[in-house]
């Protein structure tokens, strides 16, 4: 017995080394499971404060870009509003058609026409961001207090950004689209062909659109948008435009490169998408035996 203890004592450094490494591997594996919640990450309260301080200093350097983006977004929104206004002016059903009866309960008609309002956007400030690592994350300065929950989608004014991973009271960590294991269900706007967007590292402006079969006709410049086939993103959010199409000899799918619409290096304000029907749709699909596709 004494010899055993002496043996253990002799190799104590090696044993501690193995123990610590095993613990690290455990942490890596646990954190990598897609939504594995962990306490020690940048959504932590104290870490968040340090990051907020840092972004407080660096924010001043890109104020003009932020202003430009916001102004452009405002212009776009004004355009939309104008379109609706003109449509309602041009719509003469009420004055011309004498048999037209306006329904008392307008919500029924509305929900038939466009579906009930089912998405809420929470605006959040990006306080930590990276684009050059293999697995990139963002930290936002909004948390459960503002209604953010793990698994929600994150979009910017011009396209898809990522998905919320963990949330604390005041901060949240977002898995960026620039993450080696992030997959986003997308489609080509022109002909509704479904595919999957993923990022393979390297350049942070281009991603790959996978699983586009060879019979589909593609052109450079085609728009790629989200498919809306899961509850994370609404349908029709911009992802990017096709920048190159290649047909490789031994593959049954095109190799499509997509230029992402969002410049991740310039992100400063983003919106977290809350889907009000997520729970209902997920339980339905779960009960029907459909596995959730990420």
């Amino acid at each position, binding site marked *: 017995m004494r010899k055993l203890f002496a043996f253990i004592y002799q190799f*104590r*450094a*090696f044993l*501690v*080394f193995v123990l*610590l*490494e095993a*613990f*690290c*591997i*455990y*942490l*890596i594996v*646990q*954190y990598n499971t897609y939504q594995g919640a*962990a306490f*020690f*990450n*940048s959504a*932590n309260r104290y*870490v968040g404060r*340090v*990051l907020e301080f*840092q972004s407080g200093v660096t924010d001043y350097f890109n104020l003009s870009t932020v202003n430009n983006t916001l102004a452009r977004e405002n212009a776009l929104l004004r355009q939309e509003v104008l379109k609706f206004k003109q449509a309602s002016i041009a719509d003469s059903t009420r004055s011309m058609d004498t048999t037209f009866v306006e329904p008392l309960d307008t919500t029924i008609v509305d929900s038939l026409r466009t579906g009930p309002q089912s998405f809420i956007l929470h605006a959040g400030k990006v306080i*930590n961001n*990276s684009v*050059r*690592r*293999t*697995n990139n*994350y963002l*930290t936002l300065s909004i948390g459960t207090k503002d209604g953010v929950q793990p698994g929600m989608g994150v979009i910017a004014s011009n396209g898809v950004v990522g998905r919320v991973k963990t949330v604390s009271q005041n901060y949240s*960590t977002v898995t960026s689209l620039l993450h*080696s294991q992030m997959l986003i269900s997308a489609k080509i706007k022109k002909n509704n062909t479904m595919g999957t967007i993923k990022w393979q*590292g*390297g*350049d*942070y402006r281009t991603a790959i659109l996978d699983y586009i079969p060879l019979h589909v006709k593609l052109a450079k410049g085609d728009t790629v948008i989200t498919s809306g086939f899961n509850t994370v993103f609404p349908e029709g959010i911009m992802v990017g435009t096709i920048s190159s199409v290649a047909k490789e000899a031994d593959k049954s799918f095109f190799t499509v490169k997509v230029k992402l619409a969002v410049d991740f290096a310039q992100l400063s304000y983003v919106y977290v998408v809350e889907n009000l029907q997520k729970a209902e749709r997920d339980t339905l699909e779960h009960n029907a035996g459909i596995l959730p596709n990420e």
Partner: protein
Amino acid sequence: MNSTFGIRHIVQFILFVALQILLFDNLVLFSTGFCFIYIAFLLFLPITINRLVLLLLGFIVGFTVDIFYDTMGIHAAASVLLAFLRPLILNLLTPRDGYETSDSANLHIMGWNWFLTYAFILIAVHHAAVFFLEIISFEWFTLFKILLSTLFTGVVVVILQLLFFSAKRAKR
């Protein structure tokens, strides 16, 4: 191992981790050259430090960086590996008449040859561990990344030595 050891190295710990998070996080060469300067804290520890303490310090510094980088466990694993290998490398590089009590891992005391071999071997091992744990699989691009990053971190470590660790102060 007197009380000045504690304060000096605690300050170094905070300084290097802050440098890593606030400055070198944004400083990446050609999207391939990364600088993980926080391991300079482990490299500059006294030569005669207890191996168990070294392992624990390695874990703590790696874990702190992990929290800010959202890479749970990767930097901690690499730093613990570095901390485990450091005494072995130090043994390999022992001068002919052994280390003196006043020796520390300092460029001015141990000389260029000794310091460069010591630093570059350990930095290369650490960076290889980080980049391979990040993707698990093997890619040729990763080797290039390791090479450039090791050079980058190594140069910064040497510059730090030349600027802030004068021969006079180390002799004290």
